[in-house]
């Protein structure tokens, strides 16, 4: 293990440049530790986002040596064997400053995909009995652990080529609700995720699944949406 890391960090907005820093190498050091060290000890003007530091909140994703990663759970030893780190903001999103991207389009697309639960019962009704072993619940459970970090969105070529595309995370969210028996907006949601800007734009390249830090497979969710939308259109339900 080298005594220091050579770190290049993106500074500026859409126009900017990498700036070099030397950071002491530590045991069990994460990429977020490195960024935090730079901001606290070397360059207080550096802008970046983090909150939980334990892989729950989804706010610290950055491009690390060319790949989108959650930085709080990415050990330096895993990505910088030669002691060199290049840290940039997430791709496919507008850069506000340094390592901070504007996540509005990412989350606006969750809303466009109708990623909001629409209840069919009220608080006066008894709680729904959802059997965990049913096919629908298993499909929802397989996709439910998304933390909204944007790594899949930054890793998707279709997002880069087609700015209208809803992207893997929003479609994955819609798929969990399509499989939620308590939800009451199935037809509207299937219509919202159909077509050129929705699930049918996916090329099943699986960049999202390759990079998802939670090991989800949004491609599988999107394939499920394609089947569900196809059936709904053929039956005249949307």
């Amino acid at each position, binding site marked *: 293990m080298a005594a220091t890391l050579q770190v290049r960090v993106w500074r500026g907005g859409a126009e900017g440049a990498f700036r070099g820093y030397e950071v002491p190498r530590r045991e069990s050091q994460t990429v977020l530790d490195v960024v935090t060290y730079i901001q606290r000890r070397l360059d207080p003007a550096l802008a970046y986002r983090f909150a939980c530091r334990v892989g729950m909140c989804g706010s610290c994703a950055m491009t690390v040596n060319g790949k989108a990663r959650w930085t709080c759970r990415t050990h330096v030893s895993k990505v910088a064997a030669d002691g060199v780190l290049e840290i940039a903001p997430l791709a496919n999103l507008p850069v506000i400053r340094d390592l901070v991207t504007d996540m509005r389009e990412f989350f606006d697309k969750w809303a466009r995909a109708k990623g909001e639960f629409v209840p069919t019962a009220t608080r006066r009704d008894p709680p729904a009995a959802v059997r965990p072993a049913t096919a629908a619940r298993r499909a929802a459970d397989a996709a439910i652990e998304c933390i909204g970090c944007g790594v899949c969105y930054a890793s998707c070529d*279709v997002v880069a080529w*087609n700015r209208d595309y809803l992207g893997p995370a929003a479609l994955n969210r819609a798929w969990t609700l399509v499989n939620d028996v308590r939800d009451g907006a199935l037809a509207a949601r299937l*219509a919202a995720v*159909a077509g*050129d800007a929705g699930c*049918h734009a996916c090329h099943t390249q699986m960049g999202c699944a390759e990079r998802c830090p939670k090991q989800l497979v949004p491609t599988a969710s999107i394939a499920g949406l394609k089947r569900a939308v*196809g059936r709904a*259109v053929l039956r005249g339900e*949307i």
Partner: protein
Amino acid sequence: MSGDGMRGDAATLRAVRAQTMLWLAQRASAAVLALCVLVHLATMIYAVRGGLPAAEILGRTRGSAAWGAFYAVFVLAAALHAGIGLRAIATEWLGLRGKAREALVAAVALALAALGLRAVWAVVA
């Protein structure tokens, strides 16, 4: 919601239904093509190994409604499949949208169908 919004929603719904039908047509034509390619390859290998010259092959295809129908289906599936695939490429690589895209893709698909069917006609009629 305003009247404009309602009309906008209806137009959007029509568009996503049409786009979904294109996707289904893409899947269906792929299935047809998979079968057609297998039959075509098997026939080619059989004909070449059997040493059939062009004249004898033409002798078998001329007047054959079965071969004519098979290759007409093959051509139409290829034109449909290529057209829908090119539509995605035109969107992503040329940045085309709306009527310009649909016109380009329809022209390519119709040209492929016309050229292919002319070739089928040449060996069947």
